[in-house]
């Protein structure tokens, strides 16, 4: 079992990769994948912390995050399909029309 510190650093790096992905990507599918990165980074920290404290709580939270991510992605993909049908593109900049 690697030290908790190392896992935390890895998870924070993954989290940052996801956050940067959300900011720079223009395709909504890639934004969703980046979000998934961030969620899984959180899950990794929970598992590592659960192991550190010797409690099952961390893994229970991991399962909870899995379920939440699945629910979120289900709704998100529904919206993506509607976007593709309606605008014919998945580029978030092209879709943006709400202005002052």
């Amino acid at each position: 079992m690697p030290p908790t510190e190392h896992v935390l650093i890895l998870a924070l790096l993954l989290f940052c990769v996801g956050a940067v992905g959300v900011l720079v990507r223009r395709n909504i599918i890639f934004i969703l994948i980046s979000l998934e990165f961030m969620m899984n980074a959180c899950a990794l920290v929970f598992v590592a912390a659960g192991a550190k404290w010797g409690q099952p709580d961390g893994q229970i939270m991991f399962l909870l995050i899995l379920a939440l991510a699945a629910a979120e992605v289900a709704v998100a993909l529904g919206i993506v399909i509607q976007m593709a049908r309606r605008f014919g593109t998945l580029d978030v900049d092209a879709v943006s029309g709400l202005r002052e």
Partner: protein
Amino acid sequence: MSLTDVWVSFPYLIMVGGTLVLMIGVSIVRTHAIALGLTLLTLVFALAALDIGWDHIPAEGYVLFSITRMTGIQVFFNVLFLLGAIVTALFAYSYFDSRAKRCEEFYILLLTATTGAMVLAAATHFASFILGLEILSISLYAMIAYPRDARHPLEAAAKYLVLSAVASTAILMGMALIYAATGTMAFAEINQAAAGGEQSYYLLGQALICVGIAFKLSLVPFHMWTPDVYQGAPAVVTGYVATVSKGAVIAMLVRYVHANDMLSHDGVFYAVAFVAVASMIVGNLLALMQTNLKRLLAYSSIAHLGYLLVAVLVVQTARPELVMETVLIYVVAYFAITLAAFGLVSLTTEAAADETEFLESYTGLFWRNPLLASVLTAVALALAGIPLTVGFIAKFYVFASGVEGAAWALVWALVIGSAIGIYYYLRIVYTLVKEVKPGTVAMAQSSTTGTVAVTVLGIAIVVLGVYPTPLIDAVRTIVQNSGF
């Protein structure tokens, strides 16, 4: 599971059961009126169940399944969410009846979102916190995108989806780091556990949770999504997002800050105080320029959440009872005013294909529809905090808490923000009484259910402002007889 468990969790069971019944009902008969009826029935039963459950809750609160705790305050918040959902359902009936081809599923989403809000308000543990928050948010994504044929709701839903999911992951990461530092996820225990643990992870975790919550409450500098989502979402859903979803986060936040003493750390206190001041000033300044009523209300709600945060900030320095009283009264006032405001927008735009949300199209509404115009006047005055409306009572309470907590900078920001606000709120009233120019869009005659709901809200805004004693007494009794 004891019998008391069943009684206390009865409102939740009814909400979930009602959702299932509605889901099956919609798949058998697709009738809009039946869907509305089942929804209202579920919400009213849940209200009754809350009343029954309350008799079984002792003064210090009842711990349910070790991750939630019900007290009188949670019951109060849940009643507000249910009432908010009833009003939203009534507006939705008028709004979707003429627009969407299939409007029944909306009510399923409304029920699940309300269930999420009720779970969030009762949370005392990170698991119930994130569970309630996500049940609420995921339902909201679908509610915002509900009118599928329109362009703006879809865009608003996509924006809300991405930003709200980022906020949720920030909160999750914060929880994970706090758990890594302390080994516990219960609100009341993390503070003590952190004292001996690694402070850096703990503080980073608290900061991430603060950022996520500020996102959900649309506080400056995390407010960018608010005007777009408020404008793009159907007006009924905007009203729901502005009230129930934010009210639930506030309910959780007050308990969270009170339980873990987070604000006694100087750095955290000044960061949150900065957010509050920025929200009050920036929200009001940006609202000055708006010509779109929905965007104006969005900026106004940013400022109002800033006011409310003043009360949350003095939780350590002022009496906790006064703070809780302020929060409850402010939330009641904010619910009534905001639901009335967005209800009006949804009513005045019923027949139109797109929403007539520009302030211009309300020119001279007094001479065309005096009833709706009077309610909109009451709403504008209440938002500005003019005496004889419930908005004044709420603002007075925030002021009193700020003074008792000796948070003078916050009180000054509150005064300056309110002063700026009066300008654009009075502009709404001015627009209403202006002479009708030839060529302005004629506004559709609105339907009964929505008009009744909006009139009741308008009367409540004025009556609670003129004679607030029953509300204050009720809130005081609840606060004094229940632990946080």
